[in-house]
Protein backbone atom coordinates (compact mmCIF):
# COMPACT_ATOMS: atom_id res chain seq x y z
CA UNK A 1 0.00 0.00 0.00
CA UNK A 2 2.71 2.47 1.02
CA UNK A 3 4.73 1.38 -2.02
CA UNK A 4 1.85 2.21 -4.36
CA UNK A 5 1.48 5.55 -2.59
CA UNK A 6 5.15 6.34 -3.22
CA UNK A 7 4.97 5.53 -6.90
CA UNK A 8 1.89 7.73 -7.24
CA UNK A 9 3.75 10.59 -5.63
CA UNK A 10 6.64 9.96 -8.04
CA UNK A 11 4.32 10.06 -11.05
CA UNK A 12 2.95 13.35 -9.78
CA UNK A 13 6.35 14.86 -8.95
CA UNK A 14 8.12 13.77 -12.12
CA UNK A 15 5.54 15.69 -14.17
CA UNK A 16 5.71 18.75 -11.91
CA UNK A 17 7.70 21.82 -13.06
CA UNK A 18 9.51 21.81 -9.71
CA UNK A 19 11.41 18.62 -10.59
CA UNK A 20 12.68 19.78 -14.00
CA UNK A 21 13.83 23.08 -12.58
CA UNK A 22 15.57 21.59 -9.54
CA UNK A 23 17.42 18.78 -11.33
CA UNK A 24 18.67 21.20 -14.02
CA UNK A 25 20.14 23.55 -11.42
CA UNK A 26 21.57 20.63 -9.42
CA UNK A 27 23.19 19.02 -12.49
CA UNK A 28 24.66 22.33 -13.61
CA UNK A 29 26.00 23.28 -10.21
CA UNK A 30 27.66 19.86 -9.89
CA UNK A 31 29.11 19.99 -13.44
CA UNK A 32 30.40 23.50 -12.95
CA UNK A 33 32.29 22.40 -9.85
CA UNK A 34 33.91 19.54 -11.77
CA UNK A 35 34.87 21.93 -14.57
CA UNK A 36 36.48 24.36 -12.14
CA UNK A 37 38.30 21.58 -10.30
CA UNK A 38 39.77 20.47 -13.67
CA UNK A 39 41.10 24.03 -14.27
CA UNK A 40 38.55 24.58 -17.03
CA UNK A 41 39.47 21.56 -19.13
CA UNK A 42 37.32 21.96 -22.28
CA UNK A 43 36.58 18.20 -22.33
CA UNK A 44 34.71 18.65 -19.03
CA UNK A 45 32.60 21.59 -20.18
CA UNK A 46 29.63 22.02 -17.81
CA UNK A 47 27.02 21.94 -20.60
CA UNK A 48 28.36 18.60 -21.86
CA UNK A 49 28.41 17.04 -18.39
CA UNK A 50 25.05 18.40 -17.20
CA UNK A 51 23.25 17.49 -20.45
CA UNK A 52 24.67 13.93 -20.20
CA UNK A 53 23.55 13.65 -16.57
CA UNK A 54 20.06 14.99 -17.29
CA UNK A 55 19.55 12.81 -20.39
CA UNK A 56 20.57 9.75 -18.37
CA UNK A 57 18.11 10.79 -15.68
CA UNK A 58 15.25 11.14 -18.19
CA UNK A 59 16.05 7.78 -19.81
CA UNK A 60 16.44 5.89 -16.52
CA UNK A 61 13.29 7.32 -14.91
CA UNK A 62 11.36 7.18 -18.20
CA UNK A 63 10.43 10.86 -17.90
CA UNK A 64 9.43 12.59 -21.14
CA UNK A 65 11.28 15.67 -22.38
CA UNK A 66 7.96 17.56 -22.39
CA UNK A 67 7.54 16.94 -18.66
CA UNK A 68 11.16 17.92 -18.03
CA UNK A 69 10.80 21.10 -20.07
CA UNK A 70 7.74 22.22 -18.06
CA UNK A 71 10.18 23.14 -15.30
CA UNK A 72 13.37 23.87 -17.19
CA UNK A 73 11.63 26.31 -19.57
CA UNK A 74 12.04 29.00 -16.89
CA UNK A 75 15.81 28.66 -17.25
CA UNK A 76 15.55 28.40 -21.04
CA UNK A 77 13.58 31.65 -21.22
CA UNK A 78 16.41 33.74 -19.73
CA UNK A 79 18.51 32.81 -22.77
CA UNK A 80 16.71 35.59 -24.72
CA UNK A 81 17.56 38.57 -22.48
CA UNK A 82 21.04 37.08 -21.83
CA UNK A 83 21.66 37.04 -25.61
CA UNK A 84 20.65 40.71 -25.79
CA UNK A 85 23.13 41.38 -22.95
CA UNK A 86 25.99 40.11 -25.15
CA UNK A 87 25.94 43.63 -26.67
CA UNK A 88 27.73 44.89 -23.53
CA UNK A 89 31.01 42.89 -23.78
CA UNK A 90 30.94 43.65 -27.48
CA UNK A 91 30.64 47.40 -26.86
CA UNK A 92 33.59 47.17 -24.44
CA UNK A 93 35.74 46.19 -27.46
CA UNK A 94 34.62 49.23 -29.48
CA UNK A 95 38.07 50.88 -29.68
CA UNK A 96 39.59 47.70 -31.17
CA UNK A 97 36.65 47.36 -33.57
CA UNK A 98 37.20 50.93 -34.85
CA UNK A 99 40.92 50.30 -35.29
CA UNK A 100 40.70 46.91 -37.04
CA UNK A 101 37.35 47.06 -38.79
CA UNK A 102 38.63 46.37 -42.32
CA UNK A 103 40.73 43.21 -41.74
CA UNK A 104 38.19 41.93 -39.23
CA UNK A 105 35.22 42.46 -41.58
CA UNK A 106 36.87 40.65 -44.49
CA UNK A 107 38.12 37.80 -42.28
CA UNK A 108 34.78 37.55 -40.52
CA UNK A 109 32.70 37.24 -43.70
CA UNK A 110 35.11 34.71 -45.25
CA UNK A 111 35.62 32.72 -42.05
CA UNK A 112 31.93 32.49 -41.24
CA UNK A 113 31.00 31.48 -44.81
CA UNK A 114 33.75 28.87 -45.05
CA UNK A 115 32.85 27.38 -41.65
CA UNK A 116 29.19 27.06 -42.66
CA UNK A 117 29.62 25.98 -46.30
CA UNK A 118 32.31 23.41 -45.50
CA UNK A 119 30.23 21.76 -42.77
CA UNK A 120 27.06 21.70 -44.90
CA UNK A 121 28.81 20.33 -48.00
CA UNK A 122 30.94 17.73 -46.19
CA UNK A 123 27.97 16.37 -44.26
CA UNK A 124 25.85 16.43 -47.43
CA UNK A 125 28.43 14.50 -49.48
CA UNK A 126 28.75 11.94 -46.66
CA UNK A 127 24.98 11.45 -46.71
CA UNK A 128 23.74 13.23 -43.58
CA UNK A 129 20.06 14.14 -43.34
CA UNK A 130 18.97 17.68 -44.15
CA UNK A 131 18.18 18.36 -40.46
CA UNK A 132 21.73 17.41 -39.55
CA UNK A 133 23.18 19.65 -42.28
CA UNK A 134 21.10 22.65 -41.17
CA UNK A 135 21.83 21.99 -37.48
CA UNK A 136 25.58 21.92 -38.25
CA UNK A 137 25.65 25.15 -40.29
CA UNK A 138 25.57 27.68 -37.38
CA UNK A 139 27.79 25.54 -35.07
CA UNK A 140 30.66 28.07 -34.86
CA UNK A 141 28.75 30.86 -33.08
CA UNK A 142 27.64 31.17 -29.51
CA UNK A 143 24.87 28.70 -28.56
CA UNK A 144 21.85 30.98 -28.00
CA UNK A 145 22.30 32.64 -31.38
CA UNK A 146 23.16 29.39 -33.16
CA UNK A 147 19.94 27.83 -31.85
CA UNK A 148 17.88 30.77 -33.08
CA UNK A 149 19.49 30.59 -36.53
CA UNK A 150 19.11 26.81 -36.65
CA UNK A 151 15.38 27.13 -36.04
CA UNK A 152 15.06 29.74 -38.81
CA UNK A 153 16.87 27.63 -41.44
CA UNK A 154 15.21 24.28 -40.71
CA UNK A 155 17.66 22.68 -38.27
CA UNK A 156 16.95 21.25 -34.82
CA UNK A 157 17.86 23.84 -32.14
CA UNK A 158 18.57 21.14 -29.54
CA UNK A 159 20.97 19.30 -31.87
CA UNK A 160 22.61 22.63 -32.70
CA UNK A 161 23.07 23.41 -28.99
CA UNK A 162 24.96 20.14 -28.56
CA UNK A 163 27.00 20.62 -31.75
CA UNK A 164 27.97 24.17 -30.74
CA UNK A 165 29.39 22.84 -27.49
CA UNK A 166 31.25 20.00 -29.23
CA UNK A 167 32.69 22.37 -31.88
CA UNK A 168 33.85 24.66 -29.09
CA UNK A 169 35.56 21.77 -27.32
CA UNK A 170 37.21 20.51 -30.53
CA UNK A 171 38.22 24.07 -31.40
CA UNK A 172 39.71 24.70 -27.97
CA UNK A 173 41.77 21.51 -28.19
CA UNK A 174 42.72 21.46 -31.91
CA UNK A 175 42.76 25.25 -32.38
CA UNK A 176 45.85 25.98 -30.31
CA UNK A 177 47.64 23.04 -32.02
CA UNK A 178 46.69 24.21 -35.54
CA UNK A 179 47.72 27.80 -34.75
CA UNK A 180 51.03 26.54 -33.35
CA UNK A 181 51.66 24.47 -36.49
CA UNK A 182 50.98 27.57 -38.62
CA UNK A 183 53.74 29.41 -36.66
CA UNK A 184 51.51 32.46 -36.15
CA UNK A 185 53.16 34.71 -33.57
CA UNK A 186 50.68 37.57 -33.22
CA UNK A 187 48.29 36.88 -30.34
CA UNK A 188 45.63 39.21 -31.71
CA UNK A 189 45.49 37.22 -34.98
CA UNK A 190 45.42 33.89 -33.15
CA UNK A 191 42.60 35.18 -30.94
CA UNK A 192 40.51 36.24 -33.91
CA UNK A 193 40.89 32.86 -35.63
CA UNK A 194 39.87 31.16 -32.40
CA UNK A 195 36.85 33.37 -31.72
CA UNK A 196 35.42 32.97 -35.24
CA UNK A 197 35.65 29.18 -35.21
CA UNK A 198 35.19 28.17 -31.56
CA UNK A 199 33.09 30.93 -29.89
CA UNK A 200 32.98 31.10 -26.06
CA UNK A 201 34.71 27.80 -25.31
CA UNK A 202 37.56 28.74 -27.67
CA UNK A 203 37.68 32.16 -26.03
CA UNK A 204 38.01 30.62 -22.57
CA UNK A 205 40.94 28.56 -23.90
CA UNK A 206 42.47 31.66 -25.54
CA UNK A 207 42.43 33.48 -22.19
CA UNK A 208 44.54 30.65 -20.77
CA UNK A 209 47.19 31.35 -23.44
CA UNK A 210 47.25 35.15 -23.00
CA UNK A 211 44.86 37.94 -22.11
CA UNK A 212 45.49 39.57 -25.50
CA UNK A 213 44.50 36.40 -27.35
CA UNK A 214 41.43 36.10 -25.11
CA UNK A 215 40.27 39.69 -25.67
CA UNK A 216 40.56 39.35 -29.45
CA UNK A 217 38.86 35.99 -29.40
CA UNK A 218 35.96 37.54 -27.46
CA UNK A 219 35.76 40.37 -29.97
CA UNK A 220 35.78 37.98 -32.95
CA UNK A 221 33.17 35.77 -31.30
CA UNK A 222 30.82 38.74 -30.85
CA UNK A 223 31.24 39.98 -34.42
CA UNK A 224 30.94 36.47 -35.87
CA UNK A 225 27.60 36.18 -34.10
CA UNK A 226 26.15 39.09 -36.08
CA UNK A 227 27.82 38.12 -39.32
CA UNK A 228 26.49 34.56 -39.11
CA UNK A 229 22.97 35.68 -38.16
CA UNK A 230 22.84 38.00 -41.18
CA UNK A 231 24.66 35.88 -43.78
CA UNK A 232 23.72 32.30 -43.00
CA UNK A 233 19.98 32.32 -43.84
CA UNK A 234 20.81 33.68 -47.32
CA UNK A 235 23.82 31.40 -47.76
CA UNK A 236 21.66 28.38 -46.98
CA UNK A 237 18.97 29.46 -49.41
CA UNK A 238 21.65 29.76 -52.10
CA UNK A 239 23.19 26.34 -51.27
CA UNK A 240 19.85 24.55 -51.34
Amino acid at each position, binding site marked *: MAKEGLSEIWVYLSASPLTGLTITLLAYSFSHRIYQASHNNPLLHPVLISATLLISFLLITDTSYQDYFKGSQYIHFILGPATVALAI*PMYQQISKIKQLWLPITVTMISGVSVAAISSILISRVLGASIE*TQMSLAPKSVTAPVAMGISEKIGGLPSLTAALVVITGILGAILGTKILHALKLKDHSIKGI*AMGITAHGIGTARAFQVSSEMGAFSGLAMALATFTTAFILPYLVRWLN
Partner: protein
Amino acid sequence: MLNGFIILLIFFLIGEFIANLFAWPIPGSVMGMLVLFIFLIARSGIPKSIKHSSETLLPYLPLFIVPASVGIVGHLYLLQQDGLIIVLAMIASLVVGIPLCGWLMQKILAWQAK
Protein backbone atom coordinates in the same frame (compact mmCIF):
# COMPACT_ATOMS: atom_id res chain seq x y z
CA MET B 1 19.35 44.42 -11.27
CA LEU B 2 15.62 44.71 -11.93
CA ASN B 3 15.85 47.93 -13.97
CA GLY B 4 18.63 46.55 -16.11
CA PHE B 5 16.70 43.32 -16.66
CA ILE B 6 13.63 45.30 -17.74
CA ILE B 7 15.77 47.27 -20.21
CA LEU B 8 17.15 44.00 -21.64
CA LEU B 9 13.60 42.65 -22.03
CA ILE B 10 12.52 45.86 -23.78
CA PHE B 11 15.41 45.58 -26.26
CA PHE B 12 14.49 41.90 -26.74
CA LEU B 13 10.91 42.99 -27.55
CA ILE B 14 12.14 45.68 -29.96
CA GLY B 15 14.34 43.04 -31.63
CA GLU B 16 11.42 40.62 -31.98
CA PHE B 17 9.31 43.45 -33.38
CA ILE B 18 11.89 44.44 -36.03
CA ALA B 19 12.64 40.84 -37.03
CA ASN B 20 8.92 40.12 -37.47
CA LEU B 21 8.11 43.45 -39.12
CA PHE B 22 10.57 42.84 -41.96
CA ALA B 23 10.10 39.04 -41.81
CA TRP B 24 13.90 38.68 -41.49
CA PRO B 25 15.13 35.14 -40.79
CA ILE B 26 17.17 36.53 -37.85
CA PRO B 27 16.40 35.66 -34.20
CA GLY B 28 14.73 38.52 -32.30
CA SER B 29 17.29 38.23 -29.50
CA VAL B 30 20.16 38.84 -31.97
CA MET B 31 18.30 41.81 -33.44
CA GLY B 32 17.77 43.09 -29.86
CA MET B 33 21.51 42.70 -29.26
CA LEU B 34 22.26 44.76 -32.38
CA VAL B 35 19.79 47.52 -31.41
CA LEU B 36 21.28 47.67 -27.89
CA PHE B 37 24.81 47.79 -29.38
CA ILE B 38 23.83 50.75 -31.60
CA PHE B 39 22.14 52.41 -28.60
CA LEU B 40 25.37 52.07 -26.57
CA ILE B 41 27.42 53.60 -29.41
CA ALA B 42 24.94 56.50 -29.73
CA ARG B 43 25.05 57.04 -25.98
CA SER B 44 28.82 56.39 -25.89
CA GLY B 45 28.65 54.59 -22.57
CA ILE B 46 27.00 51.71 -20.71
CA PRO B 47 24.22 52.63 -18.22
CA LYS B 48 25.04 51.24 -14.79
CA SER B 49 21.82 49.21 -14.51
CA ILE B 50 22.41 47.35 -17.82
CA LYS B 51 26.05 46.74 -16.95
CA HIS B 52 25.03 45.26 -13.62
CA SER B 53 22.39 42.97 -15.15
CA SER B 54 24.70 41.74 -17.87
CA GLU B 55 27.46 41.01 -15.36
CA THR B 56 24.93 39.01 -13.34
CA LEU B 57 23.46 37.09 -16.30
CA LEU B 58 26.38 36.38 -18.63
CA PRO B 59 28.43 34.11 -16.33
CA TYR B 60 25.39 31.78 -16.35
CA LEU B 61 25.06 31.67 -20.14
CA PRO B 62 26.11 27.97 -20.26
CA LEU B 63 23.35 27.12 -17.74
CA PHE B 64 20.70 28.77 -19.92
CA ILE B 65 21.47 26.48 -22.88
CA VAL B 66 21.26 23.26 -20.83
CA PRO B 67 17.45 22.72 -21.06
CA ALA B 68 17.57 23.05 -24.85
CA SER B 69 20.59 20.76 -25.23
CA VAL B 70 18.81 18.06 -23.23
CA GLY B 71 16.20 18.18 -26.03
CA ILE B 72 18.63 16.11 -28.09
CA VAL B 73 17.17 13.14 -26.19
CA GLY B 74 14.31 13.28 -28.73
CA HIS B 75 16.73 13.01 -31.65
CA LEU B 76 19.14 10.33 -30.47
CA TYR B 77 18.38 8.37 -33.66
CA LEU B 78 19.92 11.27 -35.66
CA LEU B 79 23.12 11.02 -33.64
CA GLN B 80 23.27 7.25 -34.17
CA GLN B 81 22.72 7.74 -37.89
CA ASP B 82 24.86 10.84 -38.54
CA GLY B 83 27.18 10.98 -35.50
CA LEU B 84 30.39 10.06 -37.30
CA ILE B 85 29.62 12.39 -40.23
CA ILE B 86 28.96 15.24 -37.79
CA VAL B 87 32.33 14.82 -36.06
CA LEU B 88 34.18 14.56 -39.40
CA ALA B 89 32.44 17.66 -40.77
CA MET B 90 33.21 19.62 -37.61
CA ILE B 91 36.91 18.70 -37.61
CA ALA B 92 37.28 19.41 -41.34
CA SER B 93 35.56 22.77 -40.93
CA LEU B 94 38.00 23.73 -38.13
CA VAL B 95 41.07 22.55 -40.05
CA VAL B 96 40.04 24.74 -43.01
CA GLY B 97 38.58 27.67 -41.04
CA ILE B 98 41.30 28.42 -38.50
CA PRO B 99 44.23 28.69 -40.97
CA LEU B 100 42.08 30.70 -43.39
CA CYS B 101 41.17 33.27 -40.72
CA GLY B 102 44.75 33.56 -39.47
CA TRP B 103 46.16 33.90 -42.99
CA LEU B 104 43.59 36.50 -44.09
CA MET B 105 44.12 38.68 -40.99
CA GLN B 106 47.88 38.56 -41.49
CA LYS B 107 47.70 39.42 -45.21
CA ILE B 108 45.31 42.35 -44.78
CA LEU B 109 47.23 43.79 -41.81
CA ALA B 110 50.50 43.54 -43.80
CA TRP B 111 48.80 45.22 -46.77
CA GLN B 112 47.46 48.03 -44.56
CA ALA B 113 50.90 48.60 -43.01
CA LYS B 114 52.37 49.33 -46.45
